C-alpha cells in the first residue's frame, strides 16, 4: 500500500467520523432530553462483546451492558430507521419489535450503535460500533444439553431447545424425570427436529430414537462391541446412523491448565441400520491397532468421515501420544458396504496435532473440525481451536476470528451452511458458553457473538451449567418429555 493510499484512508476515516458525529448530532437534536456535549474517540467496553459482529436478521435482541451506573442511552441506526434505548444502570434492553424491524430492514447492511452516557447534565457520546446484518437467516432453534462442568457427579442435567428469535428455553428432556440419570449425545438428521436420538445411561439406559413423534428404545450393547453406541451422526437419508463405540475413561490433572483428561482406551466406528435394526461394520473401522471415533456422514451420504489414532500400549500414561487423524471412507448405502481403503485427509502424526468433531456443511463445501495438541476430548483442552477444511480445494486453515485463547470445541452448521454454532470456554475458562459465527461464501468465519439473553450479564454469571453439544434445528421439537420418560421407564428395549 502506497503512502498516498494510506493518507487517503486516513482522510476518509476522518470524514466518515465527522459525518457520523453530524448524524449523531442530528439524531440527538431530535430528542430534547439529549444534547451531546462531548465525543469520546474510542469504543466503550460492552458485555457481551457484540462489537463488529455479523448477525442474522432473525436473531433476538442482543441486549448488553456497559460499566456505567448512571443514565445512558443507546442509539441504534439502521438503513432506514433508528431508535434509542435508555438505561439507568448501564444495562440496555432493546425492545423486541423495534429490533426486529430494524434488523430485517437492514439485512445485507450494517447497523450503527452509539452509546452515550450522562455526566452531570451533559451527555458524552462514545465512538459508535457496528453490527453487520447478513442476508441469510439462522435456524430458528438450537438444542443443547446443560450439565455441570465436572462431568463426574451431577444431579440435574437436561436437553433443552432455545428459540433464537427470542429468549425462550424449554426442556426436551430433563433427567429429573428418570432418577437423575445421565442423558447425552443428542443428534438430529440434517437439522430436522422430527428425527432425533439421544442416549440415557444408568437405570433407564438405552438409545432413544424419535421419528415423527414415535419414540423407540434401543439396547445397543452387543457382545461383539466394546460398548453401547456413543457418538452419533445421521446419514442424510435418515436410514442409517454412524456411531462410535468407545471405552472412555476420565482423570483429573494435578497441576495443569487443562483440568480434566478424557481419553479412550479402545474405540471403533459402526453404522446402525435404523429400519432393520442391525449393525454394519468394516474391519477398516474396527482395528485393534487404532482408535476410531467421531464419525460424520457427508451431506451426499457417500462418504463417512471419522477420526483415527494409532493405539498406544498403556493408557493413561501415554495419553499425550494419542493423536487423531481425519480420515474418510466410502459408504455404499444400497449394498451396505464400506470402501476398501481409508483416505487420510489430515495426518496427525505428520502435523503433530489431533483432530476432533469433523462436521461437513450441509452444502458439502466445507468441513469444520477442532484441532488440539493431542487426544480427542477437545472440550478440556485449552489449546483446541476450530479449523476449516475447504472440500473443493482441500485447503485447511484456522478460523482465526472465531478462535480464542481458551477452548473452542463442539460445533454444528445451520441448514443453509452460513452459521456455525460452537462451544467455547473463553468467558471464564470453565463454564462452556455458545457462540455463533457467520461463515461467508469463501469459508471465512466472522467475529462470533454470544447467544443473546435478556440480561446476559446476570444470566451468565448465575448459570452454573455448561452448554454442551449445540445443534441447530430448523423448528421446534414437539415431543413431550412425559412420553419420553414413560418409554424410558416402561418400554422394553429392542
Amino acid at each position, binding site marked *: 500500500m502506497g503512502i498516498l493510499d494510506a493518507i487517503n484512508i486516513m482522510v476518509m476515516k476522518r470524514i466518515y467520523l465527522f459525518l457520523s458525529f453530524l448524524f449523531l448530532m442530528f439524531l440527538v437534536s431530535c430528542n430534547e432530553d439529549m444534547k451531546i456535549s462531548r465525543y469520546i474517540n474510542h469504543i466503550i467496553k460492552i458485555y457481551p462483546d457484540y462489537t463488529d459482529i455479523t448477525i442474522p436478521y432473525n436473531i433476538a435482541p442482543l441486549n448488553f451492558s456497559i460499566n456505567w451506573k448512571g443514565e445512558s442511552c443507546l442509539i441504534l441506526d439502521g438503513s432506514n430507521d433508528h431508535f434509542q434505548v435508555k438505561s439507568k444502570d448501564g444495562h440496555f434492553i432493546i425492545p423486541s419489535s423495534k429490533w426486529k424491524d430494524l434488523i430485517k430492514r437492514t439485512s445485507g447492511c450494517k447497523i450503527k450503535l452509539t452509546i452515550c452516557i450522562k455526566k452531570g447534565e451533559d451527555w458524552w457520546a462514545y465512538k459508535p460500533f457496528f453490527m453487520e446484518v447478513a442476508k441469510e437467516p439462522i435456524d430458528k432453534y438450537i438444542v443443547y444439553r446443560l450439565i*455441570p462442568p*465436572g462431568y*463426574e*457427579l*451431577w*444431579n*440435574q442435567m437436561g436437553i433443552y431447545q432455545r428459540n433464537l428469535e427470542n429468549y425462550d428455553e424449554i*426442556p426436551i428432556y*430433563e433427567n*429429573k*424425570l*428418570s*432418577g*437423575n440419570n445421565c442423558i447425552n449425545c443428542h443428534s438430529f438428521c440434517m437439522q430436522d427436529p422430527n428425527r432425533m436420538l439421544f442416549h440415557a445411561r444408568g437405570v433407564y439406559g438405552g438409545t432413544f430414537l424419535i421419528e415423527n413423534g414415535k419414540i423407540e428404545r434401543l439396547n445397543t450393547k452387543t457382545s461383539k462391541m466394546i460398548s453401547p453406541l456413543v457418538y452419533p451422526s445421521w446419514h442424510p437419508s435418515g436410514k442409517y446412523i454412524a456411531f462410535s463405540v468407545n471405552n472412555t475413561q476420565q*482423570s*483429573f*490433572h*494435578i*497441576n*495443569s491448565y487443562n*483440568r480434566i*483428561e478424557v481419553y479412550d482406551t479402545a474405540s471403533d466406528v459402526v453404522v446402525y441400520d435404523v429400519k432393520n435394526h442391525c449393525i454394519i461394520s468394516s474391519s477398516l473401522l474396527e482395528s485393534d491397532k487404532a482408535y476410531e471415533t467421531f464419525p460424520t456422514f457427508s451431506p451426499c451420504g457417500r462418504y463417512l468421515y471419522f477420526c483415527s489414532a494409532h493405539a498406544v500400549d498403556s493408557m*493413561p500414561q501415554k495419553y499425550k501420544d494419542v493423536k487423531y487423524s481425519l480420515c474418510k471412507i466410502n459408504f455404499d448405502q444400497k449394498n451396505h458396504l464400506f470402501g476398501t481403503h481409508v483416505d487420510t485427509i489430515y495426518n496427525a502424526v505428520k502435523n503433530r496435532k489431533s483432530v476432533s468433531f469433523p462436521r461437513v456443511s450441509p452444502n458439502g463445501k466445507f468441513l469444520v473440525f477442532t484441532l488440539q495438541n493431542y487426544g480427542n476430548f477437545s472440550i478440556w483442552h485449552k489449546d483446541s481451536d476450530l479449523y476449516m477444511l475447504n472440500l473443493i480445494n482441500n485447503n485447511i486453515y484456522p478460523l482465526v476470528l472465531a478462535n480464542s485463547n481458551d477452548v473452542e470445541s463442539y460445533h454444528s452448521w445451520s441448514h443453509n451452511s452460513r452459521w456455525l454454532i460452537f462451544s467455547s470456554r473463553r*468467558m*471464564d*475458562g*470453565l*463454564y462452556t458458553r455458545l457462540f455463533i459465527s457467520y461463515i461467508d461464501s469463501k469459508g471465512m468465519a466472522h467475529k462470533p457473538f454470544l447467544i443473546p439473553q435478556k440480561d446476559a450479564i446476570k444470566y451468565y*454469571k*448465575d448459570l*452454573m451449567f455448561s452448554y454442551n453439544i449445540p445443534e441447530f434445528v430448523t423448528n421446534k421439537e414437539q415431543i*413431550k*418429555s*412425559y412420553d419420553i*420418560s414413560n418409554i424410558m421407564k416402561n418400554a422394553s428395549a429392542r
Partner: protein
Amino acid sequence: MCAQFLVQFFPVSCVGALTTSFLVGIGAWLSWLVMKKITSVKYIFPICFLPLLFQLIILIDINYQYQGFISFLFVTIFLWVYTLIFRRNIICRTSLGLFLTVTLFFVAGPVALVFSICIFLYDILTKTTKAYMTFFSLVAIILLGIYGIHNSLISEYRFAFTPDFYYEPSFKTTNFHYFAWLSLPFVVFLSFISQYTKKANNFIKGLLLLMLISILSYFYLYTSQSCIRPSQEELLKLDHFTEMEQWDDVISVCNQYGVNNYMTSNYLNLAFVKKGILLDHLFDYPQHGPKSLIMDNDRSQSGTKLLSQIYFTMGNIAAAQWMAFNSNEIIQKSYSPSMLKVLVQTNIIFGDYAVADKYISILENTWNYRKWAKNIRKYLYNDNAIEKDSILGVKRKDLPRKDGFIIQRGIITDLMDIIDKNPYDYNAIEYTIASLLLAKYKEGIQSFVSKYYRTNVLKTLPTPLKEAIIAFSNGNRKYCYRYGIKDYMLSNYRDFRQKTLLAESQGTSSFFSVKNEYSHSYWVYLMQ
C-alpha cells in the same frame, strides 16, 4: 426461597434454634386461632404445638430440607387466613379455598394437599353451609399434580403429593413424616371432639389432657427414633464445627460419641492437623490404616465436603477442587457456601481468576459469606498478594512441579510430591508422616527420614516416628542414634518386646495388659 434465605443465617450460634423456635411459636399460635373457631374448650391448647413440633423433630433428619418446615408453617398461615374471611358467601369462600390451595401448591409444594384436607375438614366440622364445596380444593390439588406429571413439571407422583418433595430425592420418607403431615388435620378433628367434653368437670378434663399428652408423647418419642440417629446428630455437629473451624469442638464431639468409623476418624485427625498436634495424638485414638486420615471416595454430600477439606489441608489442591465441585453437584437445587469457598480458593491458587470471580459474586450475595467474599476479591489477578497470604501462598507453593492424575499414584506419593515442592506446609508434613505410619510402610518411612532428617521437613523426629524407626530397625542402636533416638526409648522398646513375648506365652489377658500399658505407642498399632 424463604427457607434458603433463613438458612444462610444459621451458621451463627443459636440463630437457627431461635428462629425455628420462634416460627414454631407462630405456627402453633395460628393453629390455636383456628382451633378456637371450632371449639371453646381451652385445656387442649398444648395440642396446637403438635404439628410444628413434629416438623421440628424431622428437621434433625439430615435428608429433610428446611423448606419442608417452612412450607408447613405456610399451611398454618393459609389455614388461618381461610378461617378469617368470606365465611358466609359460598362462592367467595370456595374461590378463596381454591385460590389459597393453588397458590400454596405453587409456593410451597405438595403440603397444599394437607391444607385442602384441613379446610375440607374445618368446613364439615363447623357445619358450614354447603361445606362439600370445599372438596373442589382437594380435587384441584390432585388435578394440578397430575397436570404437573404429564407436563414433566414434576417428575414423580411422590413428589407431587407426599413429603418426599422435601426430602433427599434418592431416599424415601418414613411413616413418621406422613404422621407429621396428618397431625394438622388430626388437631383440627381433635378440636371438634373436645367440644363434647365441655360439660365435664376439671378433673376429667385434666385427666383427658394428661392421657392425650401421654399417648402423643409416647408415639412422638417412639416414632421419632427413626429420625433422631446419634450418628446423624454427630455428623451434623462435626460438619458445623469443621465449617466454623472450631477444632476443639470437633475433638470434643469425637470424644463424646467415640471414634468408631472412618468419617469420624477423618474429622478428628483433620482437627488435630489444623491444630498442628496430629503426631502428638495420633495413637491416642483408634486408627485403622491411612483411611483413618482420608477415607475412600465418598459420594455423599457430607463425605465429599469433608474430603475436599482434607485434600485442601494436605495441599492436594486439584483433588480439593474436584471434591468441592462434586459436593456442590450432589446438593439439590442449591450450593454449599463452604464448598464455593473452596472453589474460590483453589481457583485463585491455580490462577483461574475469572471463574473464581464468578463464585465470589455468588457468595457476595449471601449474608454470612459476603464479608469473606469481599475480602478475598483482592487476590484476583494479584499474584503478589496471593504469595504473601498465609493460606493461599502456602497452598500455591504446594502445587507439584510435574503434572499427573490425582490419586492415581496413591495418597502417599502425592503427599511426598507436595512436601518435596514446599517443605514449609506443616499440615502436609503431618499428613505425610501420619500416612506413612498408618500404612506401616517400612521402606517409605526409612527413606523418608533418610531424605528429610535435619531438613525443614523433619528437624527432629516426632515420637511415633521414632518408635517406628526403632521397631523397623528392630532396635538397632547404630541406626537409631543416627536420628537422635535416646537410649531410654530403645530400652523401652526392649521392655515392650519382652513383655509381648511373655504375654504371648501366658495368654490373652496378659497380652491385653501389655497393650493397655503401651496403648498410645506405635508399637501396639504395629501389632494390629
